[in-house]
């Protein structure tokens, strides 16, 4: 049973179609990174799940409970932080936490959440005096109340310093190991790449790609970088066997396809060119995303 199943979610803002038949699901204990440019529809998907905005058609199931306008039982075990954390400024951090505890989280568990999100040191101060990072951490702590099985976090790393980002990453990995599923969006793709098990790329309200993290990154765009005793001759030798190669910054760059690495090395050895350095550069999440978005633009 999937923790979250979204089928053909469609949303109109007036006459504008904001979401086009969006479908994806999240398995228990996995982290799904929702990525895409600004205005792609990521927040609208998240808002639709938690009922902050009405969707036009499609279905959303949380823990096998279909979410309808009149039936929102499925949200009982969903914790969320959408866009900026919303806090009651006149109340302290701990009061904000207690406010949204529906009684299922004990004081000891609240303390544990406070320790895990590292808010204990400022939890007795009024929330209106918090920095963005503090607000962000309290927002995440609030999302962890009431034993969620699904966490929905929209840009949770915004405003966090490097240490806090690192700690949040560890916390999210720990939570996923406990069986909590996480739907997360972030523009910090390097950070997302370290935790996400799956990715769904959204552009113009459409899912343009979805896959597991492994296959998402092992696309055709990896590059082999070669440094030789004679780069000009080396380039000729590699190109002569039909590989796509160029010289960039005094380095031969070969598009890594199939057996390109072996073939390039053989070609250089046969041409009696000394190889000084070989590096295989895997495409990172940012490059993958940009390639997908460029391809999507091209398709239109």
């Amino acid at each position: 049973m999937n923790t979250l199943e979204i089928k053909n979610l469609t949303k109109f803002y007036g006459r504008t179609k904001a979401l086009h038949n969006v479908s994806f699901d999240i398995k228990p204990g996995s982290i799904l990174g929702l990525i895409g440019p600004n205005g792609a529809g990521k927040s609208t998907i998240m808002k639709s799940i938690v009922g902050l905005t009405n969707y036009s058609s499609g279905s959303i199931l949380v823990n096998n409970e279909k979410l309808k306008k009149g039936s929102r039982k499925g949200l009982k075990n969903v914790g969320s932080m959408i866009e900026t954390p919303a806090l009651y400024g006149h109340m302290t951090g701990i009061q904000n936490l207690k406010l949204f505890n529906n009684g299922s989280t004990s004081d000891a568990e609240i303390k544990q959440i406070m320790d895990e999100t590292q808010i204990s040191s400022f939890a007795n101060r009024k929330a209106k005096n918090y920095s963005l990072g503090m607000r962000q951490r309290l927002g995440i702590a609030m999302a962890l109340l009431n034993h969620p099985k699904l966490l929905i976090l929209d840009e949770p790393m915004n405003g966090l310093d490097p240490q806090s980002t690192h700690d949040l990453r560890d916390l999210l990995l720990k939570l996923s190991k406990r069986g909590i599923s996480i739907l997360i969006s972030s523009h910090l793709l390097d950070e997302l790449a370290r935790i996400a098990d799956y990715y769904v790329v959204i552009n113009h309200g459409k899912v343009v790609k979805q896959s597991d993290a492994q296959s998402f990154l092992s696309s055709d765009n990896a590059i082999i970088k070669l440094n030789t005793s004679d780069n000009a001759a080396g380039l000729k030798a590699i190109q002569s066997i039909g590989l796509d190669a160029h010289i960039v910054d005094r380095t031969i760059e070969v598009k890594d396809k199939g057996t390109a690495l072996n073939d390039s090395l053989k070609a250089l050895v046969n041409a009696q060119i000394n190889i000084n350095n070989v590096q295989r550069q895997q495409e990172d999440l940012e490059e993958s995303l940009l390639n997908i978005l460029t391809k999507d633009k091209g398709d239109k």
Partner: protein
Amino acid sequence: MLTLLRQELYKQIHGKFYIGWGMIMFIFAMLIGWASNKYHIMSGETYMTRLSGSIQIILIAMIVFASTIISNEFSSGTIKNLLSRQYSRMQVFISKLITILLMYIYLIVVTFISTFIGRMIFFNSGNIIWKQLGTNLGAYSLFLLLIASAALLISNIAKSSGAAIGIGVAFIFAAQIISTLLQILISHYNWLKWNPFNFINVNNQLTMNGMDKMTLLSNNQMIIGTILYSILFIFVAGFIFKKRNV
């Protein structure tokens, strides 16, 4: 539902509204009691049955409260926390309505106690004419129901809490002016007596003689009309709340 109500009360207990307005009610009752005694503005009985004249203060407090209880959540973004859970929007809305009612009861109780203390201090008497007090309270409660439900409706349309309060307070003054102007027309067009502004006179009609000749409505018509308009305002406010995107 109980969880939602508990949360609303938790927010109020940790807020300043109830303490601030409670203190204003107490101070106002004391000041009026002192002034009434010294300058013979009103008798001890009138002071008590009119709750030291604090009803107007309660009116302003309730407009502010009803205007901000929802608009504050939208302007600060905290509405997301309320709506992104298993509770329906209607449950959230009803919990807000109950909180408004509880705040009204709280302010009435504080005013009653303050006035009672004022009566004992400044008029040296604890005697209460319950029937007159009940009539006054009932009439003002109906008036407040109409005004608070209109304020709640306005607050659902307004984007910011400041605007909601401003429009709410302006509405009360404007409504009284419009009501007076419409009374000229009511004598010519009888059907105009059913306009909502005419029901703003509910408290005056129920506590004073002769108002029915101006409003052209009987006391029962006035009571039922006020309740029906209030229900309509609350219903429309609830509908907007249900449909509003966050």
